């Protein structure tokens, strides 16, 4: 070996060792951090590469049920309403609308300039067609139930009524009338969801199931589908016929499905992505320190909780025990030490929502010592002691939860109460089945709101709701929900929901642990991105500023 080869080998070895140390220590600062000098004018090239948590299972708005699918469909299609960058509901294909005094009949006036990507006008009939297709049992749409506010939707989906009886009528090409079962104040919000977006009948009738392929798909949103390689990328280009095309800056959006959040981060650091729809939560501190404002997080409309099966011992008719377990948990420690400050501690079911005043239990403001003392008193009152401790299994799914979180919970109960809780890991579908059959007594649960309204969370505890896994049943609670859903006034509706949630807090059929946060990495030169509780960031509002470097 010549001296120069030897020196080279040593350098290579040193580099390898350094890199391995980086990898082992969760990325030390020695990794070069991309920096960009950002100007104020638009860049010549308006192309954004977006990381996507998984390959969308379909781009058919009627059939899509996953978050990655929704992200892409948000760019391809537009409903009667849509979201602005901050997640607020704004007019989409509908220019204006009126409601009847009882809140059950809505009339939408469509924009005359709304166009499909082939140039044809978007008509009221296209909405009727899409909605009928969604509830038609032949379509086998999993979330046909999403249309349940509309008259006869559930009856059609379950085969009890003809498809034509759906409460949606095209009065003329630009006027759509919708009949609802009850006043539904959140109706404008759900209209922005994929289940309510219009479909182009000609494309579907011509191509059948493969209408979602590039070259076949006709969409009405700011972008149209140019290419798709399953598992690799989805390429969208600007739809020149979109009614607001003048304000759409991006000429191209490329989605890269990457199941692995670390892979998204690697590509972001290498400059191949400008936007990620997540990052490894365990590296939050490191990322904040090194990427600063490129790390964007905000409240997300979802709650992590633990649920009790209240139909069986030891939790049936044992409010004291349920409350004791809830009060013995130090949520701040879980959020800060284990979640690196990313999740926000939760003491109630419904995440913060404008206009809604959540009934936070009084003990949430107590000191830890006070809380633990009261928890011990309740634990003793429920008949448990050091000599006779509670033995119970806590079932949780393999993903997305982590073992150390449950070990920390078990330690809190052991130290603060003397209870013996054994975390038990089950595959998600096995756990789901156990929950449905009420075979599990104490289990992890999480819920993401389907629309920005308390009802999406509170229905989980309604006696007859199919996902009431804990078997909670309280006629007073059901009556409050029923009264709330009959209100036409939003404030009155929220007051009933607040009372219902207060009742729930008092009964403690579940333990709220934390609220989810949105997690994005956004390059400093990519603008038009705002955090919102729906976690939906439409490419329509994004633009790229001139910059040097990455």
């Amino acid at each position, binding site marked *: *070996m010549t001296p120069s080869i030897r020196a080279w080998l040593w350098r290579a070895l040193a*580099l*390898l060792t350094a*890199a*391995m140390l*980086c*990898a082992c220590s969760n990325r030390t600062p020695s*990794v*070069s951090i991309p920096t960009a000098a950002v100007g104020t004018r638009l860049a010549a090239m308006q192309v954004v590469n977006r990381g996507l948590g998984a*390959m969308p*299972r*379909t*781009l*058919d708005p009627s*059939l899509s*049920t996953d978050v990655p699918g929704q992200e892409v469909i948000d760019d391809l299609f537009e409903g009667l309403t849509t979201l602005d960058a901050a997640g607020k509901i704004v007019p989409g294909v509908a220019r204006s609308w009126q409601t009847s005094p009882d809140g059950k009949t809505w009339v939408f006036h469509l924009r005359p300039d709304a166009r499909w990507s082939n140039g044809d006008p978007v008509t009221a009939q296209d909405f009727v067609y899409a909605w009928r297709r969604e509830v038609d*049992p*032949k379509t*086998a749409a*999993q*979330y*046909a*139930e999403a249309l349940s506010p509309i008259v006869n939707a*559930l009856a059609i*989906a*379950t*085969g009890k009524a003809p498809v034509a009886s759906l409460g949606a009528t095209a009065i003329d090409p630009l006027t759509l009338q919708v009949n609802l079962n009850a006043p539904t104040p959140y109706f404008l919000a759900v209209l922005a969801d994929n289940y309510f977006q219009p479909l182009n009948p000609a494309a579907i009738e011509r191509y059948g*199931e*493969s*209408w*979602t392929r590039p070259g076949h798909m006709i969409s009405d949103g700011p972008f149209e589908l140019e290419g798709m*390689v*399953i*598992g*690799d*990328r989805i390429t969208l280009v600007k739809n020149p016929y979109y009614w607001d095309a003048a304000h759409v800056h991006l000429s191209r959006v490329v989605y*890269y*499905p*990457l*199941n*692995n959040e*670390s*892979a998204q981060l*690697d*590509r972001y*650091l*290498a*400059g*191949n992505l400008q936007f990620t729809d997540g990052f490894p939560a365990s590296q939050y501190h490191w990322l904040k320190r090194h990427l600063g404002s490129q790390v964007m997080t905000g409240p997300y409309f979802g709650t992590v909780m633990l649920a009790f099966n209240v139909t069986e011992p030891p939790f049936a008719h044992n409010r004291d025990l349920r409350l004791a377990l809830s009060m013995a948990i130090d949520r701040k420690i879980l959020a800060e030490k284990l979640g690196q400050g990313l999740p926000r501690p939760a003491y109630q079911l419904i995440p913060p929502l404008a206009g809604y005043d959540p009934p936070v239990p009084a003990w949430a403001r107590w000191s830890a010592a006070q809380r633990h003392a009261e928890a011990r008193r309740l634990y003793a009152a429920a008949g448990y002691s050091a000599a006779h401790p509670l033995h119970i299994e806590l079932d949780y799914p393999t993903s997305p939860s982590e073992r150390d979180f449950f070990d920390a919970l078990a330690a809190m109960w052991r130290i603060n109460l003397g209870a013996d809780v054994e975390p038990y890991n089950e*595959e*998600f*579908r*096995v756990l*789901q*089945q156990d929950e*449905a059959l009420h075979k599990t007594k104490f289990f992890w649960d999480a819920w993401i709101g*389907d629309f920005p309204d308390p009802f999406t969370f509170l229905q989980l505890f309604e006696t007859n709701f*199919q*996902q009431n896994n804990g078997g909670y049943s309280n006629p007073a609670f059901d009556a409050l929900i029923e009264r709330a859903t009959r209100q036409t006034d939003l404030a009155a509706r929220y007051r009933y929901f607040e009372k219902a949630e207060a009742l729930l807090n008092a009964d403690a059929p579940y333990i709220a642990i934390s609220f989810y946060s949105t997690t994005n990495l956004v390059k400093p030169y990519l603008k038009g991105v705002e955090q919102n509780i729906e976690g939906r960031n439409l490419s329509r509002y994004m633009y790229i500023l001139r910059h040097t470097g990455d």
Partner: protein
Amino acid sequence: MLRYLAGRLLTAVPTLIIIATLAFGLLHAAPGGPFDAAKRLPPAIERSIEAQYHLNEPLWRQYLRYMDQLAHGNFGPSYTYRDTTVNQLIRSGLPVDATIGTCALFAALSIGSLFGLLAALKRDTAWDFVPMLLASLGIALPAFVVGPLLILIFAVQLHWLPSGDWRGDSVRYLVLPVTALALPYIAYVARMVRGSALEVLSSPYIRTARAKGLPDRTVILRHALKPILTPVVSFIGPAFAGVLTGSIIIEDVFGLPGIGRYFVTGAIDRDYTLVVGITVLYGALIIICNLLADLCYAWLDPRVRLRS
């Protein structure tokens, strides 16, 4: 030879039927179904979806229906990727895995054999110690460590190569995933060749050849190389079938659109048709690769005779 081939291919049919039956039975025995979402469906809607996919029929009828499809080369619709068939998923993913896998195995065979042979010939020198130390490292370091490490060095730090992604027409995109996939195979092959070479080179017929005064090159290339490579062939056959159906870790780390990940996500999602389809494909590939390996055997070792 032709009779041997025909015989082997005929016995493959019942093997594949057994594989498909077992996979079908095991998946259907697992709790939950393909349409159990995190959000539970109203029972009536669930029933109507199941009816659309014939999941409400007795299992034996579903089985016969599926086997009939399979016999026609139709793997059926995917339950999770609703507007895509399993055939389409395999058609789009298999070429990716095949490209990366073939390159990786080619690298393993050439580089591994070279270093193994070198180590055996220069036994107990640096040519032996350093490659064998690296080979041990290559076997010990899993792809989920090597992959991100390569990305960190060559994509994030040096910006020489892309951090992942797939462009079938560009070699630049192949280098890192192929390296990460090939390293353990190179290491295995190197160790295997070294062991095999030491054994062959000390055998009496090589001593005879050397005693006759043949030059080293002739001894090794003409007389020793074929028997040295025999154990590698039996290893590379099934390994080839393995890399062809994808490596979930390599696909995950580099974001490649292969079919390896469908194995895992399909099983978790209870996508019956997808998992059974890929299992049958994997079985068929193993059968073919083993057959090819046996043919190679016969070519490498004249003592082996093919008999059906």
